[in-house]
């Protein structure tokens, strides 16, 4: 990853693309959970990666990229909500339908981490988890939907949950960090 960061900093399209592929889903999740508007969330994703690229020279390669990107995404999303609520030169009233309820730092960080873990799953395991959790399907329904035996669904589900548990162990109740921990991890 340090090599990718170095190339990202230099504007190498392949490195930018690699970072985008790895983190765009998690950044989009954070943006959506704060701005509650899909189009505005896409705008936040774009601004996040452009800001990250601009600031890449200040990023120390040995640090974790994820908390740094998360921090930029969260700030950008909050700024976007504030901008939507601010009257413009044309004099319009502040938007009344923009989300104003603050989402906690820990909550959005957990979403970022869970989304990253989901995106790291093999596609077939990811789909089993999606159907089971998002749509509430039983193993039998998932098997029918995916056209595979129930046993295959069960084994994919078990593997997926084992991977997720390992990837997210640091977020378990006993190990859950505070917002300060994450801020320090960002190297700010």
């Amino acid at each position: 990853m340090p090599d990718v960061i170095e190339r990202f900093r230099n504007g190498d399209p392949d490195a930018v693309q690699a970072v985008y592929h790895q983190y765009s889903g998690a950044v989009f999740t954070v943006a959506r959970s704060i701005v509650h508007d899909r189009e505005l969330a896409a705008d936040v994703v774009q601004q996040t990666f452009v800001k990250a690229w601009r600031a890449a020279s200040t990023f120390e390669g040995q640090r974790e990229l994820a908390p740094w990107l998360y921090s930029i995404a969260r700030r950008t999303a909050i700024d976007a909500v504030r901008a939507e609520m601010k009257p413009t030169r044309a004099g319009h009233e502040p938007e009344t339908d923009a989300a104003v309820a603050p989402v906690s730092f820990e909550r959005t960080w957990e979403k970022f981490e869970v989304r990253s873990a989901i995106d790291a799953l093999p596609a077939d395991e990811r789909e089993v988890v999606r159907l089971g959790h998002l749509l509430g399907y039983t193993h039998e329904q998932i098997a029918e939907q995916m056209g595979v035996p129930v046993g295959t669904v069960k084994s994919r589900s078990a593997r997926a949950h084992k991977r997720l548990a390992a990837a997210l162990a640091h977020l378990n109740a006993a190990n859950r960090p505070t917002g300060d921990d994450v801020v320090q991890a960002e190297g700010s």
Partner: protein
Amino acid sequence: MTDELDPVLAALLADDDLWDEPPAALEQSVLAAIASEAAPASAPIDQLAERRRRRQLSVPWWLAAAAACALVVAGVLLVTGRGDGDPERAAGLVVELSPTDVFPEASGTADVAATAAGLRIVLDTDGLPAAGPDHFYEAWITDGTVRVSAGSFHLNGASAPIELWAGVDRPTFRTLTVTLEPIDGVAESSGQVVLRGTFAELDD
């Protein structure tokens, strides 16, 4: 199924935010925005943006001539005052449109007027490249939650005032956005906003 997962994290897996994918065209947009900033430092230039730039520069002679004729006709109509007495046309207002990181050099104005037939928008852009053969631009009127299309255009010929219509003129619909859309048959916005402006309540 979730025995190994922390219950709080397992509950998060049912959250729609965790599964929604960014618009497919967003990746190209991010790469283009970064490449356009990196270009002065001799970093690689985005090929798509470069192709668009070349297309924009190479306007066919006949199209340029047609545009010139259209400008003359428009000028004559303006001088003779056509439209001044049009009972269907309400007094409009001019909205300044701001760029996003997609095309930071772009700008524009929109002359917005509420008429008996709907919201009439005359869009004048500057610095917005041709959409190319695989994309188009779409204008939207939104209240921040609901989005109504105001029509599409491509700028593949030249940049000229574009007349658009939206069938909604509710007081809460005060934001005008222009997005870059892939030609993929999906009616939903791609989310790639290239211009954005907000206007005050219109007089009826």
